[in-house]
């Protein structure tokens, strides 16, 4: 990181820490909580999709299962976050291991569709779980400290911070570099003797576990979980966020999630025809900013530096 980047990161972090202090009302806090949760979910997908090159169209499965683990345990009387959160993350990791092990036999679009297939199966499982609300979803009463919006916000912020740090370390690690190299040229890495399948699977599992964690936070924030959280449209939304932000760019997932949600929220408050605006924005960004929003920012930055050097 350059000093300028450190500075920007510091300012953003400070701003995020101050959100609950400066917020005019609870809505602002909740909106920021939601932005951070989706930033985490999208970043976890970016690890799998952007760095690992595995286009998962079933990422919402972990997001939803994470939420359901919290919900089902809470209504069954086990509300302790230490237990529910740990179990949720472990279960999502296990699930990702299973799905990944089978799906990684395929490549390209076949991989996209087989991950979708597993997510859809899980979706219908939760729709049919009538004792836990079925399609209506399940209201959850989170444990008391988490019911305070400010406390929960800071928990979310800290969780996101830790996860992003973790993702950064992964990206910079030997493992991370190997995974990115596999994405670029799989057969070369295989020839070099790398255990390609195992590396990809581990990457897929980490992504699933982190998405599960985001789902846990989301269920606590909403005090509610429904099968919508693992619908294909939710998986699609995560994908759109990552592509919008910048595939394989470290901040791509987070920036994409924030911009996507803010764009939807803002346009949605203006007109019921907001989808027209969102659609046009997506199209324009694809056509004119090939590297996504992060790509746009860095090329603008490069242009500025060049101009300054010229002047």
């Amino acid at each position, binding site marked *: 990181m350059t000093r300028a980047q450190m500075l920007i990161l510091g300012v953003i972090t400070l701003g995020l820490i101050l959100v609950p202090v400066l917020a005019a009302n609870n809505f602002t806090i909740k909106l920021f909580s939601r932005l951070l949760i989706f930033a985490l979910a999208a970043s976890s997908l970016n690890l799998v999709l952007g760095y690992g090159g595995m286009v998962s169209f079933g990422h919402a499965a972990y997001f939803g299962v994470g939420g359901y683990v919290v919900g089902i345990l809470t209504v069954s009387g086990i509300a302790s976050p230490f237990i529910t959160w740990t179990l949720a993350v472990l279960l999502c990791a296990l699930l990702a291991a299973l799905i990944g092990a089978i799906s990684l036999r395929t490549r390209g679009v076949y991989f996209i569709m087989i991950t979708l297939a597993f997510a859809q199966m899980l979706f219908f499982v939760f729709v049919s779980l009538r004792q836990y609300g079925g399609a209506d979803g399940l209201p959850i009463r989170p444990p008391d400290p988490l019911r305070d919006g400010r406390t929960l916000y800071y928990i979310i912020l800290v969780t996101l911070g830790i996860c992003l740090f973790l993702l950064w370390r992964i990206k910079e690690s030997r493992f991370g570099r190997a995974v990115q190299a596999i994405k670029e040229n799989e057969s070369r890495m295989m020839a070099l003797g790398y255990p390609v399948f195992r590396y990809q699977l581990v990457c897929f599992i980490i992504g699933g576990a982190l998405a599960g964690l985001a789902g846990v936070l989301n269920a606590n924030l909403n005090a509610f979980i429904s099968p919508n959280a693992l619908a294909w449209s939710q998986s699609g939304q995560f994908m759109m966020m990552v592509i919008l932000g910048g595939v394989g760019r470290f901040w791509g997932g987070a920036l994409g999630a924030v911009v996507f949600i803010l764009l939807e929220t803002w346009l949605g408050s203006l007109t019921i025809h907001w989808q*027209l605006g969102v*659609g046009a924005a997506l199209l324009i960004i694809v056509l004119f900013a090939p590297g996504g929003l992060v790509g746009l920012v860095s090329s603008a930055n490069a242009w500025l530096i060049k101009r300054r050097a010229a002047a």
Partner: protein
Amino acid sequence: MTPTLIVAQILNGVQLGLMLFLLAAGLTLIFGIMDMINLAHGSLYMIGAYLTATVTSATGSFFLGVGAAIIGTALIGMALEMSVLRQLYKRDHLSQVLATFGIILIVNEIVRMIWGAQPVLLNAPEVLSGPVEIVPGFRYPAFRLFLIGVGIAVALLLFFIVNRTRVGMWVRAGASNREMAQAMGVRIKLLFTLIFGLGAALCAVAGALLGPILSVQVGMGESILILAFVVIVIGGIGSIKGALIGALLVGIVDTAGRALLPLILRDLLGRDAATNIGGALASVLIYLLMALVLFWKPEGLFPARS
């Protein structure tokens, strides 16, 4: 189950399969030849249905409506290709996904602004609106028989075009090796526009023929688009034969699941338990089918490129 019921349900499976084939054929062609994931395929299907509905209402003739929709949708499809999609061929699949998702949103809103939020009227023509008696005591909806006929005709036509004509040769060349085709002097740009037009026309046929049995409304393309993707992935991308067999497989498995599963479950678990899980289990079957096929054949049943 009586023999007539079994025959009727088999016909239903074939018919559902051919319904999906109409949509999947264009999708797999565009995907296979241009290596392009086009989510807006569902939007073209919706446009086809709306155009059919509008022209049918205005002229009173369903077949005029279908004709107008085919021409109109093909033109819209080609215009879309020349203005936007052409710039996406060289981009990765993910950019194509995001861009065409944007197009879905835009088209949905435009359709809603023009036709309103409420579903629009589209019915089968009078001659095909009732059932016909195939053999004494066995009746089947005429329109669905018509659908089966058109589905088979479209399949034959596409086989003929792809395997027997010069355009088809280019198509096959383009699908397996684009540079080679270009070197052979195939005018790729024009060819792609035409193929896109053909894909859009197939969408219009699907929209026009499914409109009379399904609700013609905003968003009608998305739910069926997922099924079309399931079909082409099972069949192997780029293969018309694969799309046809994939579609029939999906149609028959889904139909069998809904027709037989409740009976089997009832025998195993008793009536109440069976009604409890039947619906969800039937919905899972086609995804299970896809996962199983991809497990054994990671590139679908009939991969076009090897």
